[in-house]
């Protein structure tokens, strides 16, 4: 192993962080190379000084009161989480287009149902006497008949429409 390669590995060798195989190779080189060995010892000394400084460093801490208060807050937070009401699952919301489709289909069925509900009851005499517009379906499902009765003249006008509201004709 060359000096150049060993010096790249010295930072890891200084902390014993090389794999066993590499550590053996580096050790073999160091035994024969005083310059690299000095480099390693130099770094180890610096690291030792750094660790000593870290141990001597005055580290901040909570006071006992602050620590107790912190633990109380942690516990209170946990209790609050436990007390939090369990939310009912949100109802599944349909997308707007789906809701519009459902409403449209419903309205369409209602209109078709009203238009093609089959023959309606015969207009009663009182209604005819008072004059009224009476919608009276025919027997056919695909036609609609509307009858207008005049209370003065007794004239009856009947409109016959197909399912597409196309004019089919009239009779009196």
């Amino acid at each position: 192993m060359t000096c150049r390669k060993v010096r790249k590995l010295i930072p890891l060798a200084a902390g014993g962080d090389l794999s066993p195989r590499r550590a053996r190779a580096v050790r073999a080189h160091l035994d024969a190379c005083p310059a690299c060995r000095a480099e390693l010892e130099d770094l180890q000394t610096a690291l030792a000084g750094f660790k000593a400084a870290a141990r001597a460093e005055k580290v901040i801490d909570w006071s006992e009161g602050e620590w107790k208060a912190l633990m109380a807050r942690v516990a209170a937070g946990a209790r609050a989480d436990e007390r939090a009401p369990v939310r009912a699952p949100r109802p599944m919301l349909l997308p707007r287009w789906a809701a519009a489709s459902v409403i449209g289909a419903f309205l369409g069925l209602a209109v078709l149902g009203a238009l093609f509900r089959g023959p309606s009851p015969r207009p009663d005499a009182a209604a005819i006497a008072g004059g009224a517009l009476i919608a009276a379906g025919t027997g056919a499902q695909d036609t609609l008949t509307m009858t207008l009765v005049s209370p003065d003249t007794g004239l009856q006008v009947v409109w016959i429409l197909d399912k597409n509201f196309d004019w089919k004709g009239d009779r009196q």
Partner: protein
Amino acid sequence: MVLSGRTEAFEPLVTPYRGPLIALASRLTRNREEALEVAQEALFRAFRSLASFDVSRSFRNWLFQIAANEARDRYRRARRERAAFEDAAGRAESATTGLSETTGSAFADPEAGQDRRELRADIMRSLAALSPREREVFVLRDIEELDIRETSRVLGCSSLSVRVHLSSARRKLREAIRRDYPHLEVGR
């Protein structure tokens, strides 16, 4: 017990790690207030996440992992805020060159702030020469004395990444000590 929901059991569980936790936070942030907040948030998060704790792991290292994540998140937020501030200040063409260097996280500047002076030994200032990742790796491996595997697990990175950053950190610190603290080499 605490895993089964006994909140009063949490305090005795974490008390032995109170010192190491806050020491780690202060070494990662180099800022007193930030360190206290990081350690506090780590405790809150630890309590909330206890159910997910793998009992085969070291509880201390698990706490360290949470604290390191919190410190990193704060650093990134501070960096984004600083960038936004500098951007806004640049648009306003105000002279903020000096100001931008004194705002944000202590990662960027260990000199600012009266409180910081309380928590640093002189030599520990050298940590400011490291990148955030180098500092995390160095603090966990060389000061907290986790092994490479545990360090990589705490930081969520590969062992190779830990070795690369550790090597770089040791080299930088060696240079910083040689430059700023030559008296430490007297006893060599």
